[in-house]
Protein backbone atom coordinates (compact mmCIF):
# COMPACT_ATOMS: atom_id res chain seq x y z
CA UNK A 1 0.00 0.00 0.00
CA UNK A 2 2.62 2.48 1.06
CA UNK A 3 4.70 1.37 -1.89
CA UNK A 4 2.00 2.20 -4.43
CA UNK A 5 1.31 5.51 -2.75
CA UNK A 6 5.01 6.32 -2.79
CA UNK A 7 5.10 5.44 -6.47
CA UNK A 8 2.32 7.93 -7.20
CA UNK A 9 4.11 10.66 -5.25
CA UNK A 10 7.37 9.75 -6.92
CA UNK A 11 5.86 9.90 -10.40
CA UNK A 12 4.23 13.25 -9.64
CA UNK A 13 7.48 14.71 -8.31
CA UNK A 14 9.24 13.09 -11.25
CA UNK A 15 6.79 14.83 -13.55
CA UNK A 16 7.63 18.20 -12.02
CA UNK A 17 11.35 17.52 -12.41
CA UNK A 18 10.91 16.14 -15.91
CA UNK A 19 8.99 19.17 -17.15
CA UNK A 20 11.57 21.55 -15.68
CA UNK A 21 14.44 19.49 -17.04
CA UNK A 22 12.97 19.50 -20.55
CA UNK A 23 12.81 23.28 -20.45
CA UNK A 24 16.42 23.58 -19.34
CA UNK A 25 17.79 21.02 -21.75
CA UNK A 26 15.96 22.53 -24.76
CA UNK A 27 17.74 25.84 -24.28
CA UNK A 28 21.02 24.03 -23.67
CA UNK A 29 20.65 22.01 -26.84
CA UNK A 30 20.31 25.11 -28.98
CA UNK A 31 22.67 27.51 -27.19
CA UNK A 32 25.18 25.06 -25.65
CA UNK A 33 25.32 26.86 -22.35
CA UNK A 34 23.67 26.02 -19.05
CA UNK A 35 21.38 28.79 -17.96
CA UNK A 36 21.80 29.07 -14.18
CA UNK A 37 18.92 31.53 -14.11
CA UNK A 38 16.57 28.77 -15.27
CA UNK A 39 15.36 28.18 -11.71
CA UNK A 40 14.11 31.76 -11.68
CA UNK A 41 11.77 30.93 -14.57
CA UNK A 42 10.22 28.36 -12.23
CA UNK A 43 9.95 30.86 -9.39
CA UNK A 44 8.54 33.57 -11.64
CA UNK A 45 5.99 31.15 -13.05
CA UNK A 46 4.79 30.24 -9.57
CA UNK A 47 4.61 33.88 -8.42
CA UNK A 48 2.88 35.14 -11.56
CA UNK A 49 0.39 32.32 -11.23
CA UNK A 50 -0.17 33.19 -7.57
CA UNK A 51 -0.65 36.86 -8.46
CA UNK A 52 -3.16 36.13 -11.20
CA UNK A 53 -5.03 33.64 -9.02
CA UNK A 54 -5.26 36.24 -6.26
CA UNK A 55 -6.61 38.66 -8.84
CA UNK A 56 -9.48 36.23 -9.35
CA UNK A 57 -8.41 34.15 -12.33
CA UNK A 58 -9.06 30.39 -12.20
CA UNK A 59 -5.93 28.41 -11.41
CA UNK A 60 -5.65 26.76 -14.83
CA UNK A 61 -5.96 30.07 -16.69
CA UNK A 62 -3.67 31.79 -14.24
CA UNK A 63 -1.10 29.06 -14.85
CA UNK A 64 -1.29 29.33 -18.62
CA UNK A 65 -1.10 33.13 -18.59
CA UNK A 66 1.83 33.01 -16.17
CA UNK A 67 3.66 30.53 -18.40
CA UNK A 68 3.24 32.74 -21.46
CA UNK A 69 4.38 35.80 -19.51
CA UNK A 70 7.49 33.98 -18.28
CA UNK A 71 8.14 32.87 -21.87
CA UNK A 72 8.31 36.54 -22.82
CA UNK A 73 10.62 37.19 -19.85
CA UNK A 74 12.86 34.41 -21.17
CA UNK A 75 13.18 36.12 -24.55
CA UNK A 76 13.92 39.45 -22.83
CA UNK A 77 16.61 37.91 -20.62
CA UNK A 78 18.21 36.25 -23.63
CA UNK A 79 18.17 39.40 -25.74
CA UNK A 80 19.37 41.69 -22.97
CA UNK A 81 22.00 39.56 -21.24
CA UNK A 82 22.93 36.39 -23.10
CA UNK A 83 22.85 37.28 -26.75
CA UNK A 84 25.42 40.10 -26.50
CA UNK A 85 27.83 37.62 -24.85
CA UNK A 86 27.20 34.67 -27.17
CA UNK A 87 30.49 35.08 -29.02
CA UNK A 88 32.57 35.51 -25.85
CA UNK A 89 32.66 31.87 -24.85
CA UNK A 90 30.93 29.91 -22.13
CA UNK A 91 32.38 31.30 -18.92
CA UNK A 92 31.05 34.87 -19.26
CA UNK A 93 27.63 33.41 -20.06
CA UNK A 94 27.64 31.12 -17.03
CA UNK A 95 28.67 33.91 -14.67
CA UNK A 96 26.12 36.26 -16.20
CA UNK A 97 23.35 33.71 -15.80
CA UNK A 98 24.19 33.29 -12.10
CA UNK A 99 24.02 37.07 -11.82
CA UNK A 100 20.66 37.16 -13.56
CA UNK A 101 19.43 34.49 -11.14
CA UNK A 102 20.34 36.60 -8.10
CA UNK A 103 18.89 39.77 -9.55
CA UNK A 104 15.57 38.08 -10.32
CA UNK A 105 15.45 36.40 -6.89
CA UNK A 106 15.95 39.70 -5.16
CA UNK A 107 13.48 41.51 -7.37
CA UNK A 108 10.91 38.94 -6.31
CA UNK A 109 11.89 39.55 -2.65
CA UNK A 110 11.32 43.27 -3.09
CA UNK A 111 7.81 42.74 -4.41
CA UNK A 112 6.67 39.63 -2.57
CA UNK A 113 8.81 39.54 0.58
CA UNK A 114 11.16 36.77 1.66
CA UNK A 115 8.68 34.55 3.42
CA UNK A 116 7.02 31.61 1.76
CA UNK A 117 3.48 32.32 0.64
CA UNK A 118 0.75 29.71 0.57
CA UNK A 119 -0.21 28.67 -2.94
CA UNK A 120 -3.99 29.07 -3.36
CA UNK A 121 -4.95 25.48 -4.06
CA UNK A 122 -8.61 24.64 -3.66
CA UNK A 123 -9.30 21.82 -1.25
CA UNK A 124 -9.71 18.56 -3.12
CA UNK A 125 -10.94 15.23 -1.87
CA UNK A 126 -8.47 12.42 -2.55
CA UNK A 127 -9.53 9.67 -4.90
CA UNK A 128 -9.99 6.30 -3.25
CA UNK A 129 -8.92 3.31 -5.30
CA UNK A 130 -9.12 -0.06 -3.56
CA UNK A 131 -8.43 1.31 -0.10
CA UNK A 132 -5.75 3.62 -1.44
CA UNK A 133 -6.07 7.38 -1.09
CA UNK A 134 -4.53 9.23 -3.98
CA UNK A 135 -4.53 13.01 -3.71
CA UNK A 136 -6.02 14.68 -6.75
CA UNK A 137 -3.20 17.23 -6.73
CA UNK A 138 -0.68 14.50 -7.53
CA UNK A 139 -2.79 13.22 -10.40
CA UNK A 140 -3.21 16.73 -11.79
CA UNK A 141 0.52 17.31 -11.58
CA UNK A 142 1.22 14.04 -13.34
CA UNK A 143 -1.41 14.83 -15.98
CA UNK A 144 -0.09 18.33 -16.68
CA UNK A 145 3.47 16.99 -16.81
CA UNK A 146 2.54 14.27 -19.29
CA UNK A 147 0.58 16.68 -21.49
CA UNK A 148 3.49 19.13 -21.45
CA UNK A 149 5.96 16.44 -22.43
CA UNK A 150 3.65 15.23 -25.18
CA UNK A 151 3.37 18.81 -26.45
CA UNK A 152 7.16 19.13 -26.52
CA UNK A 153 7.39 15.84 -28.39
CA UNK A 154 4.85 17.01 -30.99
CA UNK A 155 6.63 20.35 -31.31
CA UNK A 156 10.01 18.75 -31.95
CA UNK A 157 8.82 15.98 -34.28
CA UNK A 158 6.04 17.49 -36.29
CA UNK A 159 6.41 21.25 -36.57
CA UNK A 160 8.83 23.16 -38.75
CA UNK A 161 9.86 25.24 -35.75
CA UNK A 162 10.70 22.12 -33.76
CA UNK A 163 12.70 20.68 -36.65
CA UNK A 164 14.59 23.95 -36.98
CA UNK A 165 15.32 23.85 -33.26
CA UNK A 166 16.70 20.34 -33.61
CA UNK A 167 18.72 21.36 -36.66
CA UNK A 168 20.32 24.28 -34.80
CA UNK A 169 20.96 22.01 -31.82
CA UNK A 170 22.53 19.38 -34.07
CA UNK A 171 24.85 21.70 -36.01
CA UNK A 172 24.41 25.49 -35.72
CA UNK A 173 26.85 26.19 -38.56
CA UNK A 174 25.12 23.84 -40.97
CA UNK A 175 21.73 25.25 -39.97
CA UNK A 176 22.95 28.73 -40.92
CA UNK A 177 24.34 27.44 -44.18
CA UNK A 178 20.99 25.78 -44.90
CA UNK A 179 19.36 29.18 -44.63
CA UNK A 180 17.86 28.96 -41.14
CA UNK A 181 17.77 32.26 -39.32
CA UNK A 182 19.20 31.29 -35.95
CA UNK A 183 17.91 34.56 -34.48
CA UNK A 184 14.27 33.50 -34.72
CA UNK A 185 14.97 29.95 -33.67
CA UNK A 186 16.83 31.25 -30.60
CA UNK A 187 13.96 33.53 -29.64
CA UNK A 188 11.48 30.70 -30.00
CA UNK A 189 13.70 28.35 -28.03
CA UNK A 190 14.03 30.75 -25.13
CA UNK A 191 10.32 31.39 -25.14
CA UNK A 192 9.53 27.68 -25.01
CA UNK A 193 12.26 26.96 -22.47
CA UNK A 194 11.12 29.69 -20.08
CA UNK A 195 7.45 28.83 -20.58
CA UNK A 196 8.02 25.18 -19.75
CA UNK A 197 10.15 26.25 -16.80
CA UNK A 198 7.25 28.35 -15.54
CA UNK A 199 4.90 25.37 -15.84
CA UNK A 200 7.42 23.31 -13.87
CA UNK A 201 7.49 26.03 -11.22
CA UNK A 202 3.72 26.07 -10.93
CA UNK A 203 3.66 22.29 -10.55
CA UNK A 204 6.42 22.59 -7.96
CA UNK A 205 4.32 25.15 -6.07
CA UNK A 206 1.46 22.66 -6.05
CA UNK A 207 3.65 19.88 -4.61
CA UNK A 208 5.20 22.18 -2.01
CA UNK A 209 1.93 24.07 -1.31
CA UNK A 210 4.03 27.24 -0.86
CA UNK A 211 5.98 29.58 -3.09
CA UNK A 212 9.19 31.29 -2.04
CA UNK A 213 11.70 33.55 -3.83
CA UNK A 214 14.38 30.86 -3.80
CA UNK A 215 12.24 27.84 -4.65
CA UNK A 216 13.51 27.60 -8.23
CA UNK A 217 17.14 28.19 -7.31
CA UNK A 218 17.03 25.35 -4.76
CA UNK A 219 15.20 23.03 -7.13
CA UNK A 220 17.71 23.71 -9.91
CA UNK A 221 20.15 21.13 -8.51
CA UNK A 222 17.60 18.35 -8.85
CA UNK A 223 16.71 19.56 -12.34
CA UNK A 224 20.41 19.47 -13.28
CA UNK A 225 20.58 15.92 -11.96
CA UNK A 226 17.71 14.92 -14.24
CA UNK A 227 19.23 16.68 -17.24
CA UNK A 228 22.59 15.00 -16.73
CA UNK A 229 21.02 11.64 -16.00
CA UNK A 230 19.13 11.71 -19.27
CA UNK A 231 22.08 13.03 -21.28
CA UNK A 232 22.48 16.78 -21.53
CA UNK A 233 20.71 18.37 -24.48
CA UNK A 234 18.35 15.42 -25.00
CA UNK A 235 14.71 16.33 -24.27
CA UNK A 236 13.63 12.70 -24.12
CA UNK A 237 16.52 11.94 -21.80
CA UNK A 238 15.42 14.79 -19.56
CA UNK A 239 11.90 13.37 -19.38
CA UNK A 240 13.11 9.92 -18.35
CA UNK A 241 15.78 11.39 -16.09
CA UNK A 242 13.20 13.52 -14.32
CA UNK A 243 10.85 10.63 -13.69
CA UNK A 244 13.67 8.42 -12.40
CA UNK A 245 15.03 11.12 -10.11
CA UNK A 246 11.54 11.80 -8.74
CA UNK A 247 10.98 8.11 -8.03
CA UNK A 248 14.42 7.77 -6.40
CA UNK A 249 13.75 10.77 -4.17
CA UNK A 250 10.35 9.58 -2.98
CA UNK A 251 11.33 5.94 -2.54
CA UNK A 252 14.49 6.97 -0.69
CA UNK A 253 12.58 9.37 1.53
CA UNK A 254 9.96 6.77 2.37
CA UNK A 255 12.15 3.73 2.94
CA UNK A 256 15.54 5.10 3.96
CA UNK A 257 15.57 8.58 5.41
CA UNK A 258 13.08 11.37 4.82
CA UNK A 259 15.57 14.18 5.25
CA UNK A 260 17.83 13.05 2.50
CA UNK A 261 15.59 13.04 -0.55
CA UNK A 262 18.00 15.32 -2.44
CA UNK A 263 20.82 12.91 -1.68
CA UNK A 264 18.93 10.10 -3.39
CA UNK A 265 18.65 12.19 -6.51
CA UNK A 266 22.41 12.40 -6.66
CA UNK A 267 23.06 8.80 -5.70
CA UNK A 268 20.86 7.88 -8.66
CA UNK A 269 22.76 10.30 -10.87
CA UNK A 270 26.17 9.02 -9.80
CA UNK A 271 25.17 5.40 -10.32
CA UNK A 272 23.93 6.05 -13.84
CA UNK A 273 26.90 8.16 -14.80
CA UNK A 274 29.32 5.47 -13.64
CA UNK A 275 27.61 3.05 -16.01
CA UNK A 276 26.82 5.51 -18.82
CA UNK A 277 29.00 8.63 -18.62
CA UNK A 278 27.03 10.48 -21.30
CA UNK A 279 23.70 9.87 -19.64
CA UNK A 280 20.88 7.57 -20.66
CA UNK A 281 20.09 9.20 -24.02
CA UNK A 282 23.30 11.14 -24.55
CA UNK A 283 24.67 9.04 -27.39
CA UNK A 284 25.12 11.54 -30.15
CA UNK A 285 25.46 14.56 -27.85
Amino acid at each position, binding site marked *: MIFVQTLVYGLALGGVIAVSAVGLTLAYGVTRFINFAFGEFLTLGAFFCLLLAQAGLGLAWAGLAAAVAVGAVGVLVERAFYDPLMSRGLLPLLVTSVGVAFVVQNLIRIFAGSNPVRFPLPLMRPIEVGGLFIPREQLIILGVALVTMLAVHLLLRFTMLG*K*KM*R*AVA*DDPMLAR*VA*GISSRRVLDATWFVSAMIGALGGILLAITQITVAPQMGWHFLLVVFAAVLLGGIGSPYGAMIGGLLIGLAMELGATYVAANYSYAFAFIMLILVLILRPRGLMGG*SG
Partner: protein
Amino acid sequence: MSDAVLRAGGVDAGYGALQILFGVDLEVRQGEHVLVFGPNGAGKSTLIKALFGLVKPSAGHVTLAGRDVTGRAPEGMVAHGMAYVPQVSNVFGSMTVLENLEIGGARLSRSRREARIEEMVALFPVLGDRRKQSAGTLSGGERQMLALARALIPEPSVLLLDEPSAGVAPKIVEEIFHLVSGLRRTGVSVLMIEQNARQALPHVDRGYVLEGGAVRMTDTAASLLDNAEISKLYLGG
Protein backbone atom coordinates in the same frame (compact mmCIF):
# COMPACT_ATOMS: atom_id res chain seq x y z
CA MET B 1 29.14 38.48 -70.07
CA SER B 2 25.76 39.62 -68.83
CA ASP B 3 24.68 36.04 -68.25
CA ALA B 4 26.94 35.60 -65.21
CA VAL B 5 24.87 34.23 -62.34
CA LEU B 6 27.63 34.62 -59.81
CA ARG B 7 30.50 37.03 -60.14
CA ALA B 8 33.38 37.94 -57.86
CA GLY B 9 35.30 41.13 -58.62
CA GLY B 10 38.59 41.99 -56.94
CA VAL B 11 37.79 40.01 -53.83
CA ASP B 12 40.27 40.27 -50.94
CA ALA B 13 39.56 38.13 -47.89
CA GLY B 14 41.29 36.48 -44.99
CA TYR B 15 41.18 35.86 -41.26
CA GLY B 16 42.05 38.85 -39.12
CA ALA B 17 45.44 40.17 -40.16
CA LEU B 18 46.10 37.17 -42.35
CA GLN B 19 45.07 37.93 -45.91
CA ILE B 20 44.46 34.84 -48.03
CA LEU B 21 42.75 36.11 -51.19
CA PHE B 22 44.18 38.90 -53.33
CA GLY B 23 41.84 40.45 -55.85
CA VAL B 24 40.08 37.32 -57.06
CA ASP B 25 37.96 37.74 -60.19
CA LEU B 26 35.74 34.94 -61.37
CA GLU B 27 32.31 34.27 -62.74
CA VAL B 28 29.90 31.43 -63.17
CA ARG B 29 27.49 31.69 -66.09
CA GLN B 30 23.95 30.48 -66.32
CA GLY B 31 23.91 26.68 -66.14
CA GLU B 32 27.68 26.47 -66.21
CA HIS B 33 29.73 24.07 -64.08
CA VAL B 34 33.01 25.55 -62.89
CA LEU B 35 35.88 23.98 -60.99
CA VAL B 36 38.35 25.97 -58.89
CA PHE B 37 41.53 24.05 -58.21
CA GLY B 38 45.09 24.63 -57.13
CA PRO B 39 47.64 23.50 -54.57
CA ASN B 40 46.96 23.17 -50.86
CA GLY B 41 46.80 26.56 -49.19
CA ALA B 42 45.93 28.33 -52.44
CA GLY B 43 42.84 29.80 -50.78
CA LYS B 44 40.14 27.63 -52.40
CA SER B 45 38.31 27.11 -49.19
CA THR B 46 38.51 30.78 -48.21
CA LEU B 47 37.24 31.72 -51.65
CA ILE B 48 34.13 29.58 -51.40
CA LYS B 49 33.48 30.90 -47.89
CA ALA B 50 33.90 34.50 -49.05
CA LEU B 51 31.44 33.92 -51.89
CA PHE B 52 28.85 32.51 -49.49
CA GLY B 53 29.33 35.13 -46.77
CA LEU B 54 30.96 32.84 -44.22
CA VAL B 55 34.05 35.04 -44.47
CA LYS B 56 33.48 38.74 -45.11
CA PRO B 57 35.52 40.05 -48.05
CA SER B 58 37.68 42.99 -47.00
CA ALA B 59 37.60 44.39 -50.53
CA GLY B 60 35.86 43.72 -53.84
CA HIS B 61 32.33 42.59 -54.41
CA VAL B 62 30.22 39.49 -54.99
CA THR B 63 27.16 39.74 -57.20
CA LEU B 64 24.42 37.17 -57.55
CA ALA B 65 22.23 37.54 -60.64
CA GLY B 66 23.35 41.16 -60.91
CA ARG B 67 22.57 41.98 -57.29
CA ASP B 68 25.41 42.99 -54.96
CA VAL B 69 25.42 40.51 -52.06
CA THR B 70 28.93 41.19 -50.76
CA GLY B 71 29.32 40.25 -47.11
CA ARG B 72 25.73 39.20 -46.56
CA ALA B 73 25.13 36.52 -43.94
CA PRO B 74 24.75 32.95 -45.27
CA GLU B 75 21.02 32.83 -44.51
CA GLY B 76 20.63 35.90 -46.73
CA MET B 77 22.62 34.21 -49.50
CA VAL B 78 20.25 31.25 -49.43
CA ALA B 79 17.30 33.61 -49.71
CA HIS B 80 18.88 35.15 -52.81
CA GLY B 81 19.45 31.88 -54.59
CA MET B 82 22.87 30.65 -53.55
CA ALA B 83 23.34 27.27 -51.90
CA TYR B 84 26.38 25.78 -50.23
CA VAL B 85 27.37 22.24 -49.36
CA PRO B 86 30.15 22.17 -46.75
CA GLN B 87 32.94 19.65 -47.03
CA VAL B 88 32.34 17.65 -43.87
CA SER B 89 29.42 17.49 -41.43
CA ASN B 90 27.02 18.52 -44.16
CA VAL B 91 23.97 16.61 -42.93
CA PHE B 92 22.06 16.79 -39.65
CA GLY B 93 23.10 13.41 -38.28
CA SER B 94 20.50 13.25 -35.51
CA MET B 95 17.63 13.86 -37.91
CA THR B 96 16.06 11.61 -40.51
CA VAL B 97 16.75 11.89 -44.22
CA LEU B 98 13.28 13.36 -44.74
CA GLU B 99 13.78 15.91 -41.95
CA ASN B 100 17.08 16.97 -43.49
CA LEU B 101 15.27 17.65 -46.74
CA GLU B 102 12.50 19.51 -44.92
CA ILE B 103 15.10 21.77 -43.30
CA GLY B 104 16.39 22.56 -46.79
CA GLY B 105 12.88 23.71 -47.68
CA ALA B 106 12.16 25.52 -44.43
CA ARG B 107 11.55 28.78 -46.30
CA LEU B 108 9.14 27.27 -48.81
CA SER B 109 5.42 26.81 -48.44
CA ARG B 110 4.41 23.36 -47.27
CA SER B 111 3.06 22.26 -50.65
CA ARG B 112 6.08 23.62 -52.52
CA ARG B 113 8.41 21.94 -50.01
CA GLU B 114 6.71 18.60 -50.41
CA ALA B 115 6.82 18.89 -54.19
CA ARG B 116 10.52 19.75 -54.14
CA ILE B 117 11.27 16.83 -51.83
CA GLU B 118 9.57 14.48 -54.29
CA GLU B 119 11.65 15.94 -57.12
CA MET B 120 14.84 15.37 -55.12
CA VAL B 121 13.83 11.82 -54.32
CA ALA B 122 13.29 11.25 -58.03
CA LEU B 123 16.77 12.65 -58.68
CA PHE B 124 18.40 10.60 -55.88
CA PRO B 125 16.25 7.47 -55.54
CA VAL B 126 18.38 6.03 -52.75
CA LEU B 127 17.18 8.86 -50.50
CA GLY B 128 13.60 7.85 -51.12
CA ASP B 129 14.32 4.38 -49.78
CA ARG B 130 15.83 5.84 -46.64
CA ARG B 131 13.39 8.61 -45.75
CA LYS B 132 12.90 7.50 -42.17
CA GLN B 133 16.51 6.54 -41.60
CA SER B 134 18.70 8.72 -39.41
CA ALA B 135 21.11 10.70 -41.60
CA GLY B 136 23.93 9.81 -39.22
CA THR B 137 23.77 6.19 -40.36
CA LEU B 138 24.20 6.92 -44.09
CA SER B 139 27.34 5.96 -46.01
CA GLY B 140 29.72 8.68 -47.22
CA GLY B 141 28.25 8.68 -50.71
CA GLU B 142 24.67 8.74 -49.46
CA ARG B 143 25.51 11.63 -47.16
CA GLN B 144 26.85 13.62 -50.09
CA MET B 145 23.67 12.92 -52.02
CA LEU B 146 21.56 14.04 -49.08
CA ALA B 147 23.67 17.17 -48.66
CA LEU B 148 23.28 17.95 -52.36
CA ALA B 149 19.56 17.33 -52.27
CA ARG B 150 19.11 19.48 -49.16
CA ALA B 151 20.96 22.35 -50.82
CA LEU B 152 18.93 22.01 -54.03
CA ILE B 153 15.50 22.03 -52.38
CA PRO B 154 15.07 25.83 -52.44
CA GLU B 155 15.91 25.83 -56.20
CA PRO B 156 19.11 27.87 -55.97
CA SER B 157 20.54 29.44 -59.10
CA VAL B 158 24.12 28.65 -57.99
CA LEU B 159 25.34 25.70 -55.97
CA LEU B 160 28.72 25.96 -54.21
CA LEU B 161 30.36 22.60 -53.48
CA ASP B 162 33.26 22.36 -51.04
CA GLU B 163 35.31 19.25 -51.92
CA PRO B 164 32.42 16.88 -52.67
CA SER B 165 34.83 13.95 -52.96
CA ALA B 166 36.18 14.39 -49.41
CA GLY B 167 35.25 11.60 -47.04
CA VAL B 168 33.86 9.42 -49.81
CA ALA B 169 35.20 5.98 -50.68
CA PRO B 170 37.47 6.17 -53.80
CA LYS B 171 35.18 4.06 -55.96
CA ILE B 172 32.24 6.37 -55.11
CA VAL B 173 34.12 9.56 -56.05
CA GLU B 174 33.46 9.10 -59.77
CA GLU B 175 29.80 8.49 -59.01
CA ILE B 176 29.58 11.74 -57.05
CA PHE B 177 31.09 13.73 -59.91
CA HIS B 178 28.64 12.04 -62.28
CA LEU B 179 25.76 13.07 -60.05
CA VAL B 180 26.96 16.67 -59.94
CA SER B 181 27.38 16.62 -63.68
CA GLY B 182 23.86 15.26 -63.99
CA LEU B 183 22.51 18.33 -62.22
CA ARG B 184 22.86 20.15 -65.56
CA ARG B 185 19.37 18.85 -66.32
CA THR B 186 18.01 21.03 -63.53
CA GLY B 187 19.73 24.13 -64.94
CA VAL B 188 21.56 24.93 -61.71
CA SER B 189 25.01 26.55 -62.04
CA VAL B 190 27.76 24.89 -60.04
CA LEU B 191 30.99 26.20 -58.57
CA MET B 192 33.05 23.44 -57.02
CA ILE B 193 36.43 23.40 -55.32
CA GLU B 194 38.30 20.11 -55.37
CA GLN B 195 41.57 18.66 -54.26
CA ASN B 196 40.93 15.86 -56.68
CA ALA B 197 41.06 18.10 -59.77
CA ARG B 198 42.22 15.45 -62.25
CA GLN B 199 39.08 13.44 -61.65
CA ALA B 200 36.73 16.41 -61.36
CA LEU B 201 37.85 18.42 -64.37
CA PRO B 202 36.37 16.15 -67.06
CA HIS B 203 32.94 16.69 -65.51
CA VAL B 204 32.90 20.51 -65.63
CA ASP B 205 32.82 23.16 -68.36
CA ARG B 206 35.51 25.49 -67.16
CA GLY B 207 38.24 25.70 -64.58
CA TYR B 208 40.07 28.37 -62.59
CA VAL B 209 43.57 27.78 -61.31
CA LEU B 210 43.97 29.42 -57.92
CA GLU B 211 47.43 29.85 -56.46
CA GLY B 212 48.72 32.08 -53.70
CA GLY B 213 45.23 33.51 -53.25
CA ALA B 214 44.91 34.78 -56.81
CA VAL B 215 43.54 33.40 -60.08
CA ARG B 216 46.48 32.24 -62.23
CA MET B 217 44.48 31.30 -65.28
CA THR B 218 41.10 30.17 -66.49
CA ASP B 219 40.15 28.10 -69.50
CA THR B 220 37.73 25.47 -70.66
CA ALA B 221 38.06 22.16 -68.91
CA ALA B 222 39.19 20.46 -72.13
CA SER B 223 42.01 22.96 -72.70
CA LEU B 224 43.15 22.75 -69.10
CA LEU B 225 43.27 18.95 -69.34
CA ASP B 226 45.33 19.25 -72.54
CA ASN B 227 47.71 21.80 -71.06
CA ALA B 228 50.90 19.89 -70.21
CA GLU B 229 52.12 22.52 -67.76
CA ILE B 230 48.84 22.67 -65.86
CA SER B 231 48.75 18.92 -65.82
CA LYS B 232 52.24 18.71 -64.40
CA LEU B 233 51.80 21.48 -61.82
CA TYR B 234 48.27 21.03 -60.56
CA LEU B 235 46.87 17.73 -61.68
CA GLY B 236 49.53 15.45 -60.28
CA GLY B 237 51.26 14.55 -63.54
